């Protein structure tokens, strides 16, 4: 009874995601299974929606934009977030609780409010409709995740290692890259992945802030779902499911690694 309900909930979680995969091979321009597909006729399946992605300039631009914006937003969020987490995780940090609450707030405030505020504010500096504006916005949204993961990696971090390194004459920069960084690297990388996914998946801020030149994959999907539903979106969705499965594998690997590092230092 318990296991049956648990498996039902698991099915509820996973089936809606898997359903897009076979539908993306539909030979007809529908969002549903055709009788031919159900009878497993080869003619009912096709790769044409995948070909459509490759041939459509709009989708190619969206893919390019998503990676460019995601890359730079991740770079900013990870650099600033890692530095901040090193300060915040120390018990001597002044006003730790308040600063933490402010720095994590981009994760809590509804995106529609963030997007509206950014639209008002960024327009004054001509940042609306520019790559820089979207990158800054996405970096701000990604930093809370970096802080959380790096903070977790720093839990139980032995600060006497830093003192030892500095005491032995190492410069602060050298100490950072050779002593602190190797120990928290898994946390930094998973924070970076979170920051990248936040940007890669974000659409509300893009809707308000980006011009046609900065359209990203989710933005393109959003207008596709609103204006003319066609299975190209399902093909894109399938590719994105594969991307997230790869991400999940990477994170699991990192988690196992960071567990090893933590156990190793104790």
């Amino acid at each position, binding site marked *: 009874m318990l296991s049956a309900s648990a498996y039902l909930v698991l099915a509820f979680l996973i089936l809606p995601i898997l359903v897009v995969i076979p539908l993306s091979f539909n030979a007809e321009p529908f969002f*549903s299974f055709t009788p031919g597909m159900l009878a497993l006729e080869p003619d009912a399946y096709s790769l044409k929606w995948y070909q459509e992605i490759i041939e459509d300039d709009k989708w190619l631009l969206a893919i390019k934009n998503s990676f460019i914006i995601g890359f730079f937003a991740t770079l900013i969020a990870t650099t600033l977030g890692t530095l901040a987490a090193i300060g915040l995780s120390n018990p001597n940090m002044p006003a730790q609780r308040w600063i933490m609450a402010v720095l994590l707030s981009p994760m809590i405030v509804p995106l529609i409010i963030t997007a509206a505020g950014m639209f008002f504010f960024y327009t004054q500096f001509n940042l609306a409709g520019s790559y820089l504006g979207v990158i800054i916005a996405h970096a701000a949204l990604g930093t809370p995740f970096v802080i959380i993961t790096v903070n977790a990696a720093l839990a139980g971090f032995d600060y006497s290692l830093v003192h030892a390194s500095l005491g032995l004459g190492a410069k602060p920069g050298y100490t950072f890259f050779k002593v602190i960084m190797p120990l928290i690297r898994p946390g930094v990388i998973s924070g970076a992945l979170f920051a990248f996914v936040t940007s890669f998946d974000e659409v509300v801020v893009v809707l308000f802030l980006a011009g046609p030149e900065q359209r990203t994959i989710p933005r393109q999907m959003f207008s596709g779902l609103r204006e003319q539903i066609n299975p190209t979106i399902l093909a894109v969705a399938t590719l994105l499911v594969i991307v997230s499965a790869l991400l999940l594998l990477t994170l699991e690997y990192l988690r196992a690694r960071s567990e090893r590092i933590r156990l190793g230092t104790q």
Partner: protein
Amino acid sequence: MPAHLSIKEIADSQAQLRRKKLVLFAFTLPLLLFVMLAFVAPIATMLYRSVYHPTVAQLIPQTLKQMQGWETQPDTLPDSDSLVTFALELKSLAGERRSGKLAEEINRVFPGASSLIKSTARKLKHLDEQEIIASQGTILLDSHKKWHNPALWHAIASAGEVWTSRYYLTALDLQLSPEGAIESRDTRIYLKLYWKSLRIALLITLLTAVLAFPLSYFLANASSAKANTLLVFVLLPFWTSLLVRTTSWIALLQTNGVVNSTLKVLGIIDQPLELLYTEFATVISMTHILLPFMVLPLYSVMKNIDPSYFRAALSLGAKPLPAFAKIYFPMTLPGLSAGALLVFIISIGYYITPALVGGTDGQMISNIIAFHMQSSNNWELAAALGSLLLVLILALYWLYDRMVGVNNIKLG
């Protein structure tokens, strides 16, 4: 024997601690500045926009200046000088093609004023300035009988206020009576929508809790190899793009979608059900999207509950159900409350999914904010509605910090 420190040693160690604090703060400073500029300042701008509205004051500055002092007299028209100034300013606005903006702004305070102002502007455009001045304002009054209504002039004066609480009143379905008292509007739009968003968020929180509880319990008590394998089914949706999951629900719920076809084949229904573009679609797809946020904290709490408490209760003679309710369930509350607050906070401000699957029925407060930002261009009202939502969210965030602690948020 306690070691005695000299005053110098104490001062030195205090100075050292201060230096250490400064260094730690210096690590955090770049991000703090960045977040202040890139995130906090925009939010502050939004709050500012909800009470500061100079548009009308910039369009008809002279008129508003001349009308000062008259405003306190409820049933009279402004003096002829004010009327002439208004007519002249309206004429010059018409010449610059900006009279439409004024019409739109006044119309928000005085419904029906839009067409009046536009038609009058068209007339004034072709008149000579001297002619308008000579008429002592009768040209304006004669152009339409509505100009004889003192309430319209009061609306113009009120729209011209640079600092205003008007948008908050509108956002709360209130208005100012001509006498200046606050009264409720006949039709409630926004309060209803806030209420509906709260109701939907609460329903989603309950649904995710009911679904997550047995699953988390099962995972927490399974062997770790099995639990890790099955957790993939929770984490994959968590990591999958929101747009992908919304797309899936469109494919599932549409008229000829997977759900309707299956029900038809099973002979449960003859006609397809209208599932997509309803409140039901909003609720079920958001429940699916937010379920991992409930499962993960609940699972991590349940995993650390010692099963011997429950067994002890049973062996001491408690019946299984009361033992579960009184022993096991209270121990899951930290996870349950963390998950519930998180799901509630996220769902109350959700925009994308309701916009795509909700139709007119399943819209939430965020959707009306987006509508006022993008379609009706009533940015000040959008800002007021957003500020009220923000207050609600920050109150919940404070509660979350008190109960769970923002330092304890874990991911994945």
